[in-house]
């Protein structure tokens, strides 16, 4: 791997460090490492990020021999790869492996139900508009049919009167 700074020399200094409270990794040649000041301000510490995130996920039960590995159709990730990398491949992975991911999500957050803002809220034309009279009458007629079939004539008569009333208003 070439030094990320000069892109000329081989990177010999691989710095895992924390800047501003967050983890980072840099690959530099020794010249550039010194010049960029990585010798005095960033105190490195060693842990493997893959392991760290990987721990969030419970290992899948060993696959029976011959059984096919299930993969996300969109991005091709299998659940085993998710466990290994600690990363989810795409939005569809969450759908595909939802049940398998849930215990880990529960462990990380202590909860599994979103309680914040909702995304992609469509414009108000989706909000239920008021039913027209015709629609209501059609529904009532449907109900009346059912009532007759059930031989509930009292209810059917009620509905018939209601429909008549509404029709006369139109």
């Amino acid at each position, binding site marked *: 791997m070439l030094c990320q700074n000069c892109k000329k020399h081989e990177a010999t200094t691989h710095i895992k460090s924390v800047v501003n409270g967050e983890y980072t990794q840099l690959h530099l040649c020794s010249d550039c490492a010194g*010049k960029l000041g990585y010798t005095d301000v960033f105190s490195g510490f060693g842990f493997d990020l893959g392991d760290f995130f990987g721990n969030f996920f419970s290992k899948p039960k060993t696959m029976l021999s011959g059984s096919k590995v299930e993969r996300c159709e969109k991005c091709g990730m299998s659940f085993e790869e998710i466990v290994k990398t600690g990363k989810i491949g795409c939005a569809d992975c969450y759908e595909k492996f939802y049940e398998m991911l849930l215990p880990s999500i529960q462990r990380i957050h202590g909860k599994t139900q*979103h*309680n914040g803002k909702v995304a*992609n809220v469509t414009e108000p034309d989706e909000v239920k508009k008021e039913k027209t009279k015709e629609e209501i009458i059609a529904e009532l007629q449907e109900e009346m049919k059912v009532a007759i079939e059930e031989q509930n004539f009292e209810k059917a008569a009620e509905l018939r009167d209601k429909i008549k009333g509404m029709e006369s208003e139109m």
Partner: protein
Amino acid sequence: MGKWYRDFGPEGDVVLSTRIRFARNIREYPFPFRLDEDKKKELNSRIKDAVLSDNENMSFIEMESVPAFQTVSLAERHLISPEFAGPSKSKALILSDEEDVSIMLQEEDHLRIQAMEAGLDLEKAYEKAEKVEKDIGRVLNYAFDERIGFLTQCPTNLGTGMRASVMLHLPALTKQGLISRLASTVSKLGLVIRGAYGEGSQPGGDIYQISNQITLGISEKEAIFNLESIVKQIISQERNARKELLSDESYLDSIFRAYGILKYARKLTSNEFMKLISLVRLASAEKIIDIDTEKINAMIPDMQPATVNVRNSSMLDAEERDKLRAKEVREILGE
């Protein structure tokens, strides 16, 4: 240059700055680590169009075109995450002129939208970040699930995808050895506190960042309210501890010694600078030494190694840089 890291904001004696950050992904594209370079570039340009059409004060920067030492400087100034400073093609940054809003493209998620404010001002930072979040959401569909909220590459960000952070200067609590107890207390409340400049028992400058750790099952408002009320308690603890410390003559002596060294030294490593500036910042905020705290706030990121290089547009070796740092500090603290 960013005013937010320099200004003396609300509770500015203890709080340096506030940040809100949203993790977002676009529905139709796989997350960054499963997305090829061409698709990343295509998505970046769609995001760029969505943002720039609504925000004239923002510019789009391809990270490939930025030299590494400048990239590190952006991280030192908190405009990008350290992870973002690492290698990868197809990363891009959208930055406001005031440097108070920045959007990282193709970091861990497609989008990391962040807004910063001076002092403790979570609401204002939230409003700014949310505005950009909505601008993009009007044009592109975010990956979202009703059950688990905004979908992110790492499940630790599911739900709101929001991290609210406050940067605190806690020299007195550090001196009294109370930070580790504080850390274990806040972790029980769903928060995490860590050094903002380097880890270890005593992070550089006694500067810490506290943020919410949980993002699922808690609303944005609750998370902010929770963080704010705990930050306010820490602030009052720090103020009490300061009062106590400042009645101690030998502590006062160490403050003035620090001031003396910063004013006259010919060479300053960033470690030594951070140790001394912490004492001087405390003295400034408590009005023991007559210097504007704003000046000191600005020095903290400005004197970091890569930022010193960027300001002088050169790649200095450590020794030259330490000399230059000392010179600049003398000039700022002198007449």
